[in-house]
């Protein structure tokens, strides 16, 4: 378990249309990466493809996670291998409480390690859940609500981070976690991410705006354009984007754009 996610020359099509056209990116535990870029350049496609969504077809390249081929695994196996995706649009599961769902997910993870595992004891689960909810400043009654059912935008994103905190992955992809959040919600969610960040967690933040990066400081910033990472740098790259927008990137990599 080295926790390293290595994406090599990844090509992905959606309904026979190529979207990713050769992505290379490595995320190691403890690193925080930001993947930025204009809308519809393939950022979310990368997130879904890494998680194994059936609509995204890998046409070329490889992804190695913990030294194993990630692409052989189904989404459940990817999760249990330590990969996590915080969805841009989390899906509602009516009738299933946050607590019931989290317990089921924890048990799925533990059973993968020990097929005889009987399930997390109630006191242990309660303690764990309270601790994680405190981390995210969530009221405990939140655990009794149905997962994402009737949640506000902020509640959905917080619920995603609660899942991240509970499942303790080695690499977490946050897909537009900042979208649809007001400034207070953004702060709380970001603080939650910072609270779970650490030497054992690699983070890949996918975002259109620089805003969230005021709260979560990436060491590495990548810019995606037309299905490829065209620029990589340090946090100053994000600041440059904020100051100048994406125009200079388009200009510099016009060839890539005109291919589209």
């Amino acid at each position, binding site marked *: 378990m080295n926790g390293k996610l290595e994406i090599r020359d990844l090509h992905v099509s959606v309904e026979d249309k190529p979207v990713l056209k050769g992505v290379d990116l490595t995320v190691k535990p403890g690193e925080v990466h930001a993947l930025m870029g204009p809308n519809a350049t393939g950022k979310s496609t990368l997130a879904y493809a890494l*998680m*194994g*969504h*059936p609509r995204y077809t890998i046409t070329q390249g490889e992804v190695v996670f913990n030294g194993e081929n990630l692409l052989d695994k*189904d*989404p*459940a196996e*990817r*999760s*249990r291998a330590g990969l*996590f*995706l915080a*969805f841009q649009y*989390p*899906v*509602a*599961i*009516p*009738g*299933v409480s946050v607590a*019931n*769902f989290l317990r*089921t*997910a924890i048990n*799925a*993870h533990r059973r*993968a390690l020990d097929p005889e595992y009987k399930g997390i004891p109630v006191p242990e689960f309660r303690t764990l859940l309270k601790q994680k909810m405190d981390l995210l400043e969530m009221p405990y009654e939140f655990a009794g609500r*149905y997962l994402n059912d009737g949640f506000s935008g902020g509640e959905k994103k917080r619920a995603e981070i609660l*899942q991240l905190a509970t*499942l303790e992955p080695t690499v977490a992809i946050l897909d537009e976690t900042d979208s649809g959040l007001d400034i207070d919600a953004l702060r709380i969610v970001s603080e939650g991410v910072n609270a779970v960040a650490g030497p054992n967690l690699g983070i890949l933040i996918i975002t259109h705006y620089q805003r969230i990066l005021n709260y979560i400081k990436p060491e590495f910033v990548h810019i995606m354009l037309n299905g490829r990472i065209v620029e990589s740098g340090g946090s100053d790259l994000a600041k440059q984007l904020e100051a100048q927008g994406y125009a200079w990137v388009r200009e510099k990599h016009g060839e890539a754009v005109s291919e589209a």
Partner: protein
Amino acid sequence: MTKSSVKRKFTQKKLSEVAPEFPFTLEDVTNLSERLGEPAWLRERRLSAWQAHSQLPMPSMQDEAWRRSDIRKLPSDRLALKPAEDVSLDPNLLAPLGGEDCGGRLVLRPGLPSQSTGGTELSEHGVVFCDWATAVREHERLLREHLGSVVRESEAKFAALAAGLMQEGALIYVPPGVKLESPLHTIIWAPGSGGLVATRLMVIVDQNAELTLVHETGSPLQPQGEAVYAGMVELHVGEGAKLSFVELQHWGEHVWNFTHERARLESNARIEWVFGAVGSRFTKTYADLDLDGEGAEGRMAAFYITDGEQHLDHDTQQNHLKPHTTSDLLFKGALRNRSRSVWQGMIYVAPGAQQADGYQMNRNLILSDDARADSIPGLEILADDVRCTHGATVGRLEDEPIFYLMTRGLERETAERLMIDGFFTPILERIPLEDLRVRTKAMLHRKLNELTSHG
């Protein structure tokens, strides 16, 4: 094609158009009544019910209510009137309803002695909770007053069958103002094949009284043979009274199950009626709500889960007979393999029943290509100032939620199972007591586990 084969085909078709009549006679009815020690007036009631049964035609797919439910293979002509076999109860049924003080339990084994627990505290409050023999012996006045007053004995073929040939029954009476906190529990347990088992349940909750009743019907799965069950359920909820009625049906899949059930509510009465149905080979249940007093409110909810070749048909009526009455129905089903469900529901608003508020919704989850759910909502509104809405859906588990759950480490089967659980949660939430919810959930889970293990 030769002439004789044409003829044979014709004869076969003709034979199978309707199910055969039951082989019983007036003498069987008299003998049964005598054996149960019934007084003459009860015997007369039985005989007239049997006569009605004999005169009513066997339902067939020509009848609107039976168009989607085929009973041509009903083994009616091969049945005997025989007692339930003496097989011990499924321990799941005997699991406590919760708390230590279940108000009382009555296990009815038609043709065999019934078993009861609890009840001393009940009689102190004047509550009647007894089997048929006791009702006949000790509560004739209640029987005379209420028997057949909610479900008429002659109103349909199978109601008349139950009324004519019932072998066992339960009578429950809660006097005015008595509020029972602990639930009562009746179980009809009828193992065995080749027989007809018929029972009646009468519940009277008098003015301002309150009762929670769990009524279960069940048998083990018989490896061979078939059986028929006919039941009548009459619920009388008096003025200002409250009844929570949880009915759990877990017949073995050799049972053809026919029931006629109705609740009549007087003014400001309230019923919370929850069905759970997982058993039987075939079910045709009529469940009606007669809101017969101003301010009466009835809620009905059901879950049904079917697999294999099961066929469950629930026919509901929400009858708004007086002004300011409210009804709310939610039926939900999940179907696997080649199983089939029919829900046919009607909201009726009588002339002058203004300010009626009726709602019905049926949702079905199809889990296999060959399963099928028919959903037929209906409105018949004869008053002009009412609010009635209804809807029905038939769908499958969606891909996006499954993917979402899988990304959290759940195997596909676990993800699907969690979604099915969630689908039924709104029904379980209507069950009044936490302990009862747990019990009902356990029953639902046992069935879902079967579904999952069948693949």
